[in-house]
Structure formats: structure tokens, C-alpha cells
């Protein structure tokens, strides 16, 4: 422990143990449409984290008493493979799995036009295959891509990242070694970046208000970059599908990708966004 306290996590050049800059995330690769039997899917690598997400549905909400006559229900399952952590994970879901499933599902709800699918459920399964801090951000970022791949109409993509503090410095995307730093703070956040709406926000550790504000700015910039990777993955998948002329599935998916593209490239066009917001609010009002 005493040795560890002397460990330098960010050196004088501002570089971290793995050579990254403070505002640099680990390498991320995203691939949409990887699972044949899923309505939508996504494989995402984020440093050592590897996650595979499927979307099934919308289909009838079961058991019936959970159905909502005004909108679709989102069932998100975050599950770690037994071999995805240093000590084998018991396959039964623990309390951490259940909490993460809950907040990730809620984080996606606002991005989906749920009112288009009354009495149904949309089932998202995020299987963590390897992990090294940041698996919930990876799962949520991949899930949003999988939803778009499923052709489910969405207002915007949801993009997640963790930001935190080590050695007194605000850094993007802590890895496990950094999470073990004595003063480490970890703050997973997810946003719909067009509207800067925060749909997931958690935090562990001791932050000052100033640090929160700095962390937020670092997160926003990180999210912008990661969102571009989400869009690229969807474009890539869209091209592939076009080639294969899988027209039936594509029609709705095209719209999703386009909407994501547009909202990204024309993000100054605030009117549209406001309208989107209004549409959603109306829908919500109906529900409540």
C-alpha cells in the first residue's frame, strides 16, 4: 500500500501509465449487426472491455400485468460472463448487476420513441465478455447502437463514458489500475449529445464541485468522439446491408442512421431538437 501511494499515475508530460493523455479514452471499436438471430446487435471493444449486445422485440410485454398501454417497456440486462473478471463471477445476477441493468435501461428510455409501441417490451441483453473498468459505459454505448441497428426509431444515440480523478487530475476513461489509485474517483455518465441531456450519471469517490465541472467538460468532449464511432459503425453496417440488399430490415434502420447522422452534423439546428423534445414531452404527458 505504501508503495502504491507513491505510484505516479500521471507524469509530468501529462501522460498516464498506459501512455494516454488525460482526456484520451482507450481505443474503441464498434461493429453493428453482428448477431443473426437478434433484431439488432452490436459488438464493442473498449480497451480490454468487450461487450456483445442483442436487441429483441418490440414484442408483447410479458407477464401481461407489466404492459403499459401507452408505450413500450425497456428491459435491460447487464450480465458479466463468468470468465470476464479476475475472480470467476457466479452466473447468478448480483445486486451490482441488477442496479446497472436498471440505470442503463432507464438511460435508454428517453432516446427511444417508446410511444410507438404500446403494450410491448424491448429486450436488451448486454453480455460482458472481458472487463477492465468501464464495462457499463461500454454496454450502454453498444446498446444504443444495437437499438439503432434494430431499426427502432430514436431521437438521438446515447453515448456513455466514465470520467474521474487520479493523482488530483481529471482524466477520461479510467482503467482498472487507475481505479485502484488512492484518490480515485469514478463517474460514469451518459448523454444524448445533441441536446446535452444527461441520461445516466453515477459517481463514487470524493469530488469537489469544481472537479465535477471539469469532469463534465472532459466527458462531453469524450462523448462527442465516441458518438462519431457509433455513427460510423451504423453507417458501415448500413452500407453492408445495402450491398446485401436486405431491404426489409433496412428501411427502418435507414431512418435511424440518418436521424443520428443528421442530428450529429446539423446539431446547431436547434429548432428540430426542440420539436423532438416537445413530441416526447407530449408522449410522456399522455402516459402520466
Amino acid at each position, binding site marked *: 500500500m505504501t508503495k502504491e501511494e507513491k505510484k505516479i499515475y500521471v507524469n509530468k508530460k501529462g501522460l498516464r501509465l498506459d501512455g494516454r493523455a488525460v482526456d484520451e479514452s482507450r481505443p474503441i471499436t464498434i461493429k453493428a449487426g453482428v448477431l443473426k438471430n437478434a433484431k439488432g446487435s452490436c459488438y464493442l471493444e473498449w480497451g480490454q472491455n468487450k461487450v456483445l449486445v442483442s436487441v429483441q422485440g418490440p414484442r408483447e410485454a410479458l407477464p401481461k400485468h407489466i404492459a403499459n398501454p401507452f408505450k413500450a417497456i425497456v428491459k435491460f440486462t447487464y450480465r458479466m460472463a463468468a470468465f470476464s473478471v479476475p475472480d470467476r463471477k457466479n452466473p447468478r445476477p448480483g*445486486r*451490482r448487476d*441488477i*442496479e446497472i*441493468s*436498471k*440505470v442503463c435501461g*432507464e438511460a435508454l*428510455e*428517453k432516446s427511444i420513441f417508446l410511444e410507438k409501441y404500446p403494450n410491448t417490451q424491448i429486450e436488451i441483453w448486454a453480455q460482458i465478455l472481458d472487463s477492465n473498468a468501464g464495462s457499463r459505459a461500454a454496454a450502454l454505448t453498444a446498446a444504443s447502437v444495437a437499438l439503432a441497428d434494430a431499426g427502432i426509431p430514436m431521437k438521438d444515440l446515447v453515448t456513455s463514458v466514465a470520467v474521474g480523478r487520479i493523482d488530483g487530475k481529471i482524466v477520461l476513461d479510467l482503467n482498472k489500475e487507475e481505479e485502484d489509485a488512492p484518490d480515485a474517483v469514478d*463517474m460514469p455518465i451518459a448523454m*444524448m449529445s445533441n*441536446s*446535452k*441531456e*444527461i*441520461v*445516466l*450519471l*453515477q*459517481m*463514487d*469517490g*470524493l*469530488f*469537489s*464541485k469544481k472537479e*465535477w*465541472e471539469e469532469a*463534465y467538460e472532459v466527458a462531453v468532449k469524450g462523448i462527442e468522439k465516441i458518438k462519431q464511432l457509433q455513427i460510423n459503425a451504423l453507417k458501415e453496417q448500413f452500407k453492408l446491408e445495402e450491398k446485401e440488399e436486405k431491404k426489409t430490415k433496412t428501411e427502418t434502420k435507414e431512418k435511424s442512421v440518418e436521424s443520428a447522422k443528421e442530428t450529429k452534423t446539423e446539431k446547431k439546428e436547434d429548432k428540430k431538437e426542440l420539436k423532438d423534445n416537445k413530441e416526447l414531452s407530449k408522449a*410522456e*404527458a399522455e402516459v*402520466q
Partner: protein
Amino acid sequence: MQKDVLLELNAEKVLNNLKEGKRNNGRKVDEYRKITIEKDLYKNAEGCAKVKLGDTEVIAGVKFSLGTPYPDSPKQGTISVGAELIPLASPFFETGPPSMESIELARVVDRGIRESKAVDFEKLCITEGEQVLIGFIDMYAINFDGNLFDASAIAAISALNEAKLPKIENDKIVEKEYSGKLKLKRKPLLSTFAKIGNVLVVDPDLMEETAMQARFSVATTEDNFVSAFQKGLSGAIKKEDVDNAIDTAFKTSKEIRKNI
């Protein structure tokens, strides 16, 4: 957790009043309901507290058990927080295994305490690498009128603050004998906000919770740190909401902390 239909009909009223700047219950947006804390109620608990936050009531109690430390922290005990949403508190709380709601509640209270380093886990070590104390904090909702998060967090930290450490002899806990009090290094408190329309209100009551799109909780310490965030529900919040929440939380929790 089912929802009360009558309350949902009132949700629109809450929203409309807030548009005109008025809280349904006459409070200011940064104003808590009245808080009362009763302590030293149950002899079998090593520490306990009953908290009333308006009409919301939560009881928390602390018990210590012996356990083995985690391999990567052989000198540290730990805490374990549980929450039970029982039918005493609401006809809509169901019996059965812990719900997602009660698990989230327990884990957010846990993080607020754990991450603020309120409890010095090394003080809970009996024999390095072999035996440590685990502090179980169990919370029971007995009346539900909104904002179980803050009521539970106040109850939990109040109970911990009273907690006596058991006396250990021959690797066993000696019943009814104690080796002193658990000294808290910090007293983190949770402040929970409801986002209703564009307004953020602290300490929502049940009617406001029915109207809220998003819930946001921030745990704060006496030395001006935040030790946990938790955003919940399907709505979104903005950066300004968080800023606003932090400021309000520092202010209100200072008052509340005096009573613990």
C-alpha cells in the same frame, strides 16, 4: 412497485403549479420537509435511528458480524447496506424478494457512506487477513410519502453514528458487551431532487415523485465534497441541474447534519 392511480391524476396539477413557480405543498424548491430523528430505540441493534421526513418514515439499524476480509484488503472490514420496502409503508409495496427499487436504494446509500470514507474500515479489522467486522445497516421503510432515498440515508448515517463496536473474545462476539463507539470520520448525507418539467425540486413528496421525469441524488460531506451521484428514471437532467443540486445539497445538508 405498482402505482396509485389517484396520485397519477394529481401529477398534472403538480406540473402546472410548478410552471407558475409554486410547489404543491407550499415549499420552496430548495426546502426540505420537517425532519425528526429518534435514536436509541432498539436494544438488540448496535445502533439505530428512526427518521421522519415529512410523512415519510424510515427505520435503520446496525448489527456487526464477524467475517473474513477480501484478499485484496486484508486489513479492512466493510459495511453492507440493505433496504426493505414493506407493506407497512404503502399498500403498493409488495412482499417477496428485494425489488430493483430496493436494491438501487440500498446501493446508493451504501456508496454515499462508503465512498466518503465515513467509516474507517481499518478500525473494523480484528486479525489481519483473517477476521474483520462487517457492519450491516438494514433500513425499513414504514411510511412512504416520497423521497425514501434521503430519509434512508439520514437513518443509516444516524444509526451508524450511534453504533457501538462489539467486544471480541476468542474470535467471538461477546453478547451485550462493547469496546467503544464507532467513530465516523464524515457524515455524508444524500440530497435527492425531482426534475419535473424544467424545474428541480429538493425532497420531493409522493405527489411530486409521481410527476417527476427524473430523479437525481447527490451525497455531500461536511468538508464540501460530493461522494455519490445517482440519476434515476427515464427522464434526463442537464449540467445546470447538477450544479444547482450540488449547491442546494451543500446548503440543506449542513442544516440536517446538525441533528445527527
